[in-house]
């Protein structure tokens, strides 16, 4: 009974087992300790699976020992492994940072339930990444959504409640659209397993229900992934959520819905529906371009730092969908790479914001005036994270921008126009990062009498680990590159 | 077979009448009455259809309906009574 064979199942079972235990723990720090240990264990399992996937072992796990179309099958390939790494790493980093950061926002007696909801969100997100059954994705999507509504509604600010209510309504509509899409496909193919569905959809390719299903699934997942026209819930939800929750969910929550969209579109619809690649590209590309331009523009004029970074998240999702909409192997590699690199950049930025929030009265730009001198380490981390977001050479952001531009250049004339869009997007990113830097370093401190002290040590260490990871993967991108290129090849070739 | 159809038609017509009363009912209690009537009719409808389709082991569904109907009506009454006592205490205060 070696554990290696059960890794795919343990990735979800370990967090699920921990949830009831954490919910029962009323001791003051025990809940945080058990939650962090569970998250680190999940991270270890993800790393073990990534190593297995890199040297060619494909994890396939039949639940209850039933063959796939009859039972539920878990499947971990390069794309799932990369996503699992992102989810568990973001959760572990944010949990380590929450030791200090959470006491300022939630009364200690409610921490046990908060951490139980946190580990539920982790289990839900990693469940979506691992399962290969269309309806099972819906169940885990609901677990992760319910848990993230609870996490986001935990903040002290009363404006968080209407924001989370809007997120709940739009998220449920998105999940139900996805359910309608799966229902329509199941009606025409008779199976729920993604592999089996891909083979059987060829016979019923061009009937109306399958086209309607493709439409419903794309709109539903676009709503969950906050793609441009459907992103209205994201800025307020991220701004008023507790800081560590924003750090965790900004790094991975929306990426998971993009992962499901990629897996559905490239595995089930791609080579079966006639002219689907053209339809897929013609729908996603304009949405991506608008996302990059308009979201970055709005970010330039934002007053609150967290809302500024939330709008920049909407823009970065635009980059990911732009790469995916090229429907070429290099385009997909760039898009999957950017899932990894954006998680690093945005995670470290929001952790730095969590450090700021510990010491500063508010998160408006004017509260930052001249605090760089009294909080040097935090602002250095903020600057490095900003550079990675812009895509300065030597940071992770540059790698994905580089592969995106090289993928676009292969398109010829249209590619050059798209490269122009990316350059404009990056310039706008420079502007809104510079506004923070200029406010912090070159403004006179608003109240010289009470200089802010440096953030607590553990918080700083976690932030700096994330920032150094940014730089490391900027210089040495072998791991994410290998994973994303084999993932892109698998998706395009659709070879199981 | 037509023995059951007469009763079923009667039940369905009464369901429509209950819905009309629920929509038109001027006071809240008319609606509670309509919900109560609708619940009992569903119980009868289920018992007769269970016999009509020959699957007689579905009668415990009808029992569940009766239970849910009773608890639902009581829950509504507790709510209305609390709403009334809060209103009356408000009236008595000012």
């Amino acid at each position, binding site marked *: 009974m070696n554990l290696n064979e059960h890794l795919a199942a343990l990735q979800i*079972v370990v967090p*699920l*087992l921990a*949830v*009831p*235990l954490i*919910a*029962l723990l009323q001791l003051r720090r025990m809940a945080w300790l058990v939650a962090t240990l569970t998250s680190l264990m999940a991270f270890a399992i993800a790393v073990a699976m990534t190593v297995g996937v890199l040297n060619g072992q494909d994890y396939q796990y*039949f*639940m*209850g*020992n039933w063959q796939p*179309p*009859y*039972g539920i099958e878990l499947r971990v390939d390069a794309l799932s492994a990369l996503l699992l790494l992102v989810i568990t790493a973001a959760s572990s980093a944010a949990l380590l940072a929450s030791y200090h950061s959470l006491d300022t926002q939630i*009364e200690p007696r*409610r921490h046990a*339930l908060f951490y*139980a*909801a946190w580990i*539920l969100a982790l289990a839900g997100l990693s*469940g979506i990444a691992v399962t290969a059954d269309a309806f099972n994705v819906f*169940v885990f999507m609901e*677990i992760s959504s*319910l848990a993230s509504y*609870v996490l986001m509604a935990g903040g002290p600010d*009363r404006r968080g409640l209407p924001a989370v209510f809007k997120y709940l309504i739009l998220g449920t509509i998105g999940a139900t659209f996805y359910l309608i899409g799966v229902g329509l496909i*199941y*009606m*025409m193919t*008779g199976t729920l397993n993604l592999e089996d569905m891909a083979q059987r959809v060829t016979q019923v390719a061009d009937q*109306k229900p399958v086209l*309607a299903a493709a*439409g419903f699934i794309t709109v539903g997942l676009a709503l969950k992934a906050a793609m441009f026209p459907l992103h209205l819930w994201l800025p307020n939800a991220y701004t008023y959520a507790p800081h560590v929750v924003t750090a965790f969910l900004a790094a991975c929550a929306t990426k998971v819905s993009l992962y499901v969209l990629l897996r559905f579109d490239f595995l089930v619809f791609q080579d079966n529906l006639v002219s689907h690649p053209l339809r897929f590209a013609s729908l996603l590309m304009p949405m991506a371009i608008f996302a990059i331009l308009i979201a970055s523009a709005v970010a330039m004029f934002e007053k609150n730092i967290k809302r500024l970074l939330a709008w920049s998240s909407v823009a970065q999702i635009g980059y990911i969908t732009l790469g995916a909409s090229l429907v070429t192997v290099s385009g997909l590699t760039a898009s999957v790479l950017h899932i990894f690199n954006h998680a690093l950049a945005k995670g470290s930025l929001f952790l730095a914001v969590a450090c700021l929030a510990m010491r500063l009265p508010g998160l408006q730009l004017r509260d930052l005036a001249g605090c760089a001198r009294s909080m040097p380490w935090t602002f250095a981390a903020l600057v490095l994270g900003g550079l990675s977001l812009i895509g300065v050479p030597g940071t992770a952001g540059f790698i994905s921008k580089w592969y995106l531009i090289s993928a676009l250049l292969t398109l010829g004339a249209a590619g050059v126009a798209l490269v122009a869009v990316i350059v404009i997007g990056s310039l706008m990113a420079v502007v809104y990062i510079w506004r923070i830097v200029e406010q912090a370093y070159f403004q006179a401190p608003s109240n010289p009498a009470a200089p802010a002290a440096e953030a607590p040590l553990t918080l700083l260490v976690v932030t700096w680990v994330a920032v150094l990871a940014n730089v490391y993967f900027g210089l040495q991108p072998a791991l994410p590159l290998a994973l994303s290129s084999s993932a892109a090849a698998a998706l395009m070739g659709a070879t199981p | 077979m037509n023995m059951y159809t007469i009763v*079923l038609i009667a039940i*369905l017509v009464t*369901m*429509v009448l209950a*819905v009309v009363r*629920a929509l038109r009912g001027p006071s809240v209690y008319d609606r*509670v009455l309509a*919900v109560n009537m*609708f619940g009992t009719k*569903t119980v009868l409808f289920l018992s007769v*259809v269970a016999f009509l389709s020959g699957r007689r*082991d*579905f009668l*415990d*569904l009808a029992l569940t*309906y009766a*239970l*849910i109907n*009773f*608890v639902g009506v*009581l*829950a*509504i009454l*507790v709510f209305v*009574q*609390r709403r009334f006592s809060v209103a009356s205490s408000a009236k008595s205060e000012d």
Partner: protein
Amino acid sequence: MTILFAVFLLSLLVIIAVAIIRAENLFVALMLTTIFSLLMATNFFILDAADVALTEAAIGAGITTVIFLGALALTSEHEKPFVAVPWLALPVVAVTAALLIFASFDNPRLGDPEAPIHQHVVPWYLEQTPKLVDIPNVVTAILGSFRAFDTLGEVFVIFAACIGVLFLLSARKPSETRCTAPASVGLSQHLIPKVAGRFILPFIILFGFYVQFHGDFGPGGGFQAGAIVATGLILFALLEGEERALRAFPRWIMMAMAAGGALLYALVGVAGIAMGGKFLDYSVLSSDPIAGQHLGILLIEAGVGITVCGSLLLIFHAFAARESF
């Protein structure tokens, strides 16, 4: 025959849905929603979905009404008349409806035996269940054994809702709205419902256990049983008032039930791994695979029933306690 019933009941459904939307008083809209779920459950029964009809009745009509009433008691029940100019919403919704109706012509006709979903996976289920799992109710066999991972996710969805409601409603109230609502005294003046309710309560709980263990042979199972037992205990709380209910069935028992049921379900899965099979593999649980399947399904249905009952009770008491918070 069934098509006539279905057509009649479905048109009644649409009328009720329109009535719910147009109802100004939220309390009235809620009562129409009760009728709406009763109609849905009857439709499911006519379309041969006995288990789903039972669940929709127990959870849809019973628990949803009680939770909505709890929330309405804490908020206002009058909807402000808001004259919305639906210039955006109407076209969007009309286009979606037209697209769906247009797409529905390629769907298989109602009850068409050649429809693809009756050809591929389901015949295997119908012929293999007597051999592999050997329980009459195929729905419980699929729910409990073939797709047990879905049900595990389901148990954690209801547990997530329970944790969420407890977390949200345990926050301290902003000081100025601490109104001194009278502690819920239940139906004090109504002596007859109290006597009738107290007489019926044991039978409701007994009926809940019957539905729990009858799940393998007829319509029933963990979800329905948990909802019925929870409805019974909510009836007790309604009649006797909040404090006596909490004294009879304290909060920590409910929390232990909610967490314990989910844990029991996951541990049955882990036992499958420990005994050399896969996760949630019951054949290895005992020497004879069929007995193992029976044991496995019995245990996880018990886990589901316990969690659903504990979670629904915690949610109800969270809303009820919020008044006198």
